[in-house]
């Protein structure tokens, strides 16, 4: 743990340095030996990637802190835990920064290896089964993504994102490559109907790790997808494909919400809520294709705000839920009666994070919904509005299932164990951040649309 904290400190220093670089000199594109054309690592740093780097740093340090206290005294697990966490974090930061497709591919696989290791730490039959299911998504998803990369390389002779953005044009083969990449990433991002691997994987692992998985890992595939669409979408994406993704997103919102309402285990409810929330992300695609520049800025801000506030809120939810489960010694929602008296702080964190999940003010989730409503009105795609409204109500339904159970006074024979106070710190901080994002959104919003790579490189 001490070692991990040093690593986190180093990470923080690097983040500050990157931020300073970004402020002083603007976006940055840097490739290892660009002239020789070796598939070395290339890096692209701009507002959006910087935002995700900060997000990763925050969530990483808090979940490492949480995991350190959660597994305190469990040396064997700690021994196997940290290098897997580091692997995931390295992979994630590489995903945010990658400047070419091969680096992206390697980064995604790095994340996947680490994640499989983390899920397997649960060390029960269910964890191994979930790990295998997750591997399924990884195998097929990345294969499809890879075929797309190879086709593009064959056509344009480059894998650099910057060069591709300049060269890419509509041909049938490019279209196929783009569709294959999209399909692969959609599978790994757990969009309905390809979501079934996600809830068991997140629900069955240890709480601080579920927090890490659901807050950041699901975002990685979506982030890549969003970047590709923002870079190339205007040229190669068809509006039908875009609308289709939007429709699937709506189904995910409704289906995920519905399934979350029907879960009997607390952590499974939170995991299905991810399926529900991921659906909102996919409203990005229909509203950046064939619309005015203004709308595409608005919807990018809305969706990215949703991504970030979901990351913060969901990490808080998982940690708080983990504390409740730890205190009760039971995973079941129906055993929560009377918990409000025993674990008020964890329940408060849960509640604050839930405000953002439900999209109620003041929270990042609320602002995100505001932007999404605005962009669907402005683009004339009014048909997303009913889902946006219904989705909010559905998430309120599953959230308040938990609260109404916890307020129930009858049959509250909750036998509780003492939960270390240190475990209640991280969820509270994360939840407060999710709420604060709804009041101080100026800087994040500005960073989101500052994505252009410096002109000098072009």
């Amino acid at each position, binding site marked *: 743990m001490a070692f991990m904290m040093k690593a986190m400190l180093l990470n923080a220093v690097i983040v500050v340095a990157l931020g300073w670089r970004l402020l002083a000199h603007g976006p940055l594109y840097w490739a290892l030996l660009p002239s*020789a*054309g*070796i*598939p*070395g690592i290339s890096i692209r740093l701009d507002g959006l990637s910087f935002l995700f780097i900060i997000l990763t740093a925050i969530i990483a340090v808090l979940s490492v802190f949480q995991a350190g206290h959660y597994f305190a005294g469990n040396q064997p697990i700690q021994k196997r835990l940290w290098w897997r966490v580091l692997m995931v974090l390295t992979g994630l930061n590489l995903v945010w920064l990658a400047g070419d497709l*091969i680096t992206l*591919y*390697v980064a995604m*696989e790095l994340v*996947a*290896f680490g994640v*499989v290791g983390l899920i*397997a730490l649960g060390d029960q*039959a269910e964890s*191994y*089964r979930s*790990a*295998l*299911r997750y*591997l*399924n998504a*990884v*195998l*097929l998803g*990345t*294969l499809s993504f*890879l*075929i797309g990369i*190879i086709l593009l*390389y*064959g056509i344009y*002779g480059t*894998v650099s994102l910057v060069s591709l953005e300049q060269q890419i044009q509509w041909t049938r083969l490019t279209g196929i490559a783009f569709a294959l990449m999209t399909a692969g990433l959609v599978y790994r991002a757990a969009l309905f109907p390809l979501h079934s691997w996600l809830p068991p994987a997140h629900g069955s692992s240890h709480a601080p790790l579920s927090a890490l998985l659901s807050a950041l890992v699901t975002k990685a595939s979506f982030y890549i997808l969003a970047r590709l669409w923002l870079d190339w979408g205007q040229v190669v994406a068809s509006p039908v494909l875009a609308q289709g993704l939007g429709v699937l997103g709506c189904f995910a919102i409704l289906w995920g919400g519905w399934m979350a309402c029907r879960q009997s285990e607390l952590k499974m409810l939170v995991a299905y809520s991810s399926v529900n929330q991921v659906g909102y992300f996919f409203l990005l695609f229909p509203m950046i294709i064939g619309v005015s520049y203004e709308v595409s800025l608005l919807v990018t801000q809305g969706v990215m705000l949703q991504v970030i506030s979901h990351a913060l809120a969901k990490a808080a939810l998982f940690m708080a839920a983990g504390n409740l489960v730890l205190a009760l010694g039971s995973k079941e929602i129906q055993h929560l009666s009377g918990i409000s008296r025993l674990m008020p702080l964890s329940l408060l964190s849960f509640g604050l994070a839930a405000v953002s999940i439900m999209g109620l003010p003041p929270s990042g989730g609320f602002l995100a919904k505001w932007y999404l409503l605005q962009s669907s009105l402005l683009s004339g795609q009014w048909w997303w509005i009913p889902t946006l409204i219904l989705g909010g109500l559905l998430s309120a339904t599953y959230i308040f299932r938990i609260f109404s159970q916890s307020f129930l006074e009858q049959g509250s024979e909750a036998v509780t164990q003492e939960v270390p106070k240190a475990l209640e710190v991280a969820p509270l901080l994360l939840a407060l951040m999710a709420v604060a994002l709804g009041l101080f959104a100026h800087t994040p919003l500005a960073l989101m649309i500052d994505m252009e790579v410096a002109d000098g490189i072009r």
Partner: protein
Amino acid sequence: MMTQTLLWTLSILLLLLGATGFAVKRDYVRRIIAFNIMSTAVLLMFAGFAVTVEDEPMLTGVFVVLLLVTSVLTALTLSMRSQLVSRFNLSDRDR
């Protein structure tokens, strides 16, 4: 040109074979074999492009990366599967 067509035809055939295997088979050993067949197909496809794109360091690099990633994924899948089967005595068929 002949070589390229041959490689691509072969690659597409293998891809279809692997995909069918992946879709039909429920147990993880057969699935991972199917996955490896598909990976081979992808490598062949890549090799097909190597005929036209002259960029040797890039090609070798990508080849190595792909082989590495495929073997790690295979190893991970097999180890998860063996945990499930040997420690918990469960079937490794995907429900």
